[in-house]
């Protein structure tokens, strides 16, 4: 089929042609970028924390009228209270392991610092690597379900305790593999020493876990999202968090038993509905904004595509109606039904083709603008190519019904007055 008659006909419908092409271009630009954003969010939400997240919950509680953590005496008292709580939780039926911790991945409450090869390094200086600390004890690995890839676990002898504010040497630590690789690119970090937070006392790395995310998922922590350090130290203050792993299937039962068990130790504490949370809830809360954004973008894209498809159907239907007689003439002169169908399909392909070329330019431009104003990376070619193909397919799908109607115009139309 020759393109010339199609182009000649389109020249008669300049405004309509331009509008459809423009609509396709805009739709492509918006949908490409929106789907890219959705993809980024989904990827972010799906990344594993490194924990075994099932059968895990967190208890956050505060004591009322607790001793001050300012003096050694108060710290000892607070530590005794914490040990009592831990013992009570560990005795509950259905509990597999319990560890005190200052935070968990996705909890967005973090204690960050930096580690270095050299002692007494300046904070934030060169050669420093930022990290987030988890202060915990010898049951941390089994409670959190972390996989040890090198070295050994903490033992009871490694565990110290300190007041929240106190500075204490950290003789041993377990670090995440990402941090180990960053500190010692040659591998084998176990047995080597690092210095944390500008301290002069060395910290020996006794183990490496496969993966452990830091508590914050905010953009400020994205540069060290996987650089975690586990310190075998109970922190003593008026506030304590306990991570609890239950035996499979006993999560709900154990969660219900926590408050009575802790109140039995001492009723002088604040424990409310928010205090006992399964990890699934922590995860849902951390990412709810991302999921909401992805869903919203998805819905808008879907409606946008529907509107554009409906617009193509509407305008083509109008053209078919307008050209009834010409179609009849062509049929009378020997054109087959399939020729008429192809005519409209090729016409749409031409318009959509111009639209997607413009759309690709707009999509890349929009992506570049977003990159300067928001945290966004360059859009991968795959998204654009998929978008182009999808747009052309939608155009063909939308044009099919009116085009078929056109092909059914009988040759006798040629003899009728319009």
């Amino acid at each position, binding site marked *: 089929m020759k393109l010339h008659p199609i182009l000649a006909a389109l020249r008669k419908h300049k405004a309509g042609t331009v509008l459809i092409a423009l609509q396709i271009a805009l739709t492509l630009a918006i949908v490409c970028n929106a789907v890219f954003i959705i993809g980024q969010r989904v990827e972010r939400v799906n990344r594993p924390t490194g924990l075994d997240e099932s059968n895990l919950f967190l208890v956050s509680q505060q004591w009322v009228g607790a001793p001050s953590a300012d003096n050694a005496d108060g710290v000892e008292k607070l530590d005794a209270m914490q040990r009592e709580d831990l013992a009570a939780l560990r005795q509950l039926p259905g509990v597999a392991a319990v560890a005190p911790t200052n935070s968990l991945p996705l909890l967005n409450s973090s204690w960050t610092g930096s580690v270095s090869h050299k002692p007494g390094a300046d904070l934030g200086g060169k050669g420093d690597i930022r990290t987030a600390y988890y202060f915990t004890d010898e049951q941390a690995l089994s409670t959190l379900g972390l996989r040890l890839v090198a070295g050994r676990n903490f033992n009871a002898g490694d565990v110290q305790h300190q007041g929240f*504010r106190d500075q204490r040497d950290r003789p041993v630590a377990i670090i995440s593999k990402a941090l180990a690789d960053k500190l010692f690119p040659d591998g084998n970090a176990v047995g080597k020493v690092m210095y944390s937070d500008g301290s002069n006392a060395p910290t020996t790395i006794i183990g490496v876990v496969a993966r452990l995310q830091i508590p914050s998922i905010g953009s400020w922590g994205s540069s060290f999202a996987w650089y975690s350090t586990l310190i075998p130290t109970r922190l003593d203050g008026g506030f304590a968090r306990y991570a609890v792993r239950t035996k499979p299937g006993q999560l709900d039962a154990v969660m219900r038993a926590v408050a009575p068990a802790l109140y039995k130790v001492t009723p002088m504490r604040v424990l*409310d509905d928010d205090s006992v949370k399964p990890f699934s809830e922590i995860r849902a809360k951390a990412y709810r*904004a991302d999921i909401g954004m992805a869903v919203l973008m998805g819905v808008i894209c879907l409606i946008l595509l529907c509107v*554009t498809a409906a617009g193509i159907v509407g305008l083509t239907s*109008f053209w078919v*109606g307008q050209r009834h007689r010409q179609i009849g003439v062509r049929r009378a002169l020997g054109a087959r039904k399939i020729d008429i169908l192809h005519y409209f399909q090729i016409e749409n392909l031409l318009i959509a083709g111009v639209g997607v070329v413009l759309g690709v330019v707009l999509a890349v431009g929009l992506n570049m603008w*977003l990159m300067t104003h*928001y945290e966004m990376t360059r859009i991968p070619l795959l998204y654009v190519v998929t978008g182009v193909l999808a747009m052309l397919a939608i155009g063909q799908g939308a044009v099919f019904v009116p085009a078929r109607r056109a092909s059914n115009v009988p040759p006798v139309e040629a003899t009728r007055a319009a």
Partner: protein
Amino acid sequence: MFAYYLDLALRSLKRNKALTALMVLAIALGIGASMTTLTVLHVLSGDPLPGKSAQLYYPQIDPQDLKGMMPGKEPPEQLTLVDGLNLLHAARADRQALMAGGSAPIDPGKADMDPFYVETRYTTTGFFPMFDAPFLFGHAWTAADDEAKARDVVIARSLNDKLFGGADSVGRTLRMAGVDWRIVGVLDQWRPNPHFYDLTTGSYAYAEQVFLPLQTMVELRLDRNGSSDCWGNGGGGVGNILPNDDCVWLQFWVQLDTPAKAAAYRDFLVHYSQEQKALGRFQRAPNVRLRNVMQWLDYKMVVPDDVRLQAGLAFGFLLVCLVNTVGLMLAKFMRRAAELGVRRALGASRRALFAQLLIESGVVGLVGGLGGLLLAMLGLWLVRQRPSDYAALAQLDTSMLFTTFALAVCATLLAGLLPAWRACQIAPALQLKSN
């Protein structure tokens, strides 16, 4: 004439129900989506204290040591306790208040109520008049109470309702953090949005439930929330431990009624920095900032990026819907070329035809706008169901309601312009002949 055109428009729209429905739906969806997101953006970037925010300033000075100094770098976003008290006592502004956020356990002293935690604000007497906080009962504590480290509190209405059943509780005792406090005032409903005076405890946080003198808090070492930034050997302080002098952790606001006073206050901050440097406390050259409320919110970028992105997306969506409507309207008008040709031949002017067609697109816009309004209300309801801290704020106000309609009608009239103009260009003779 208008009524006749309206009648013609309705007839024409009825003739092509599917096309009309498609146009109305596209407009409604576009308007609904953009109004929902625009309302959220409008609420979140709103002025917390309309009429007053231009006179409230947030002074920043730079007390850090020389490590990590870079020219042009912003000074810290909060103050140390020493500087805060110095600036407060200097009292160079029309009003001033130094503050920090925290939380404290309340013992209701009733058998049927467990102890619970409330958010607290430790501040100074200037806070209430400066921020126009409305009193339901009683009044603020005095400057003398501040210095005397009085055990006075002002509580929020919600707490008053919870503990005292809404009665005037002034003069009664509140047992909090193991200390007896005298209630001197009860605030009425008050929730400035954003929570501009302390963004470190949440940009859209509710106002605190208990207010008490800052210096009393320092003496009693009450629990503190929010952020602290330290340098040198500074320790941030956790729980009931205060950050030390190498840490900034306090917010300081001043009221300066005229631009001249603001300029003078800026000079004062520079002068203060020089003086502190001469005394050996400061090491850096004076580096001060003095932003008013809206400048501060802008600088801190409180409006979430996602909300901006959503609004941008929704307007892109509206644009596509409008292009779509232009195309459909064009098709519709051109199809009626014959009818328009007859009217022209019978003596209707181009202008009359143009008006008729514009009214037709206006009707589509109006109905679409109405549908868009309903969709926007549905959209905002959906936003309110989401668990974000600003969800409850997503309400349509009158100005946004008005904007919705204006946007819808303007947009469709604009969309109707090109098709109507094109349809009017048809030569009547040609149209009549071809039929």
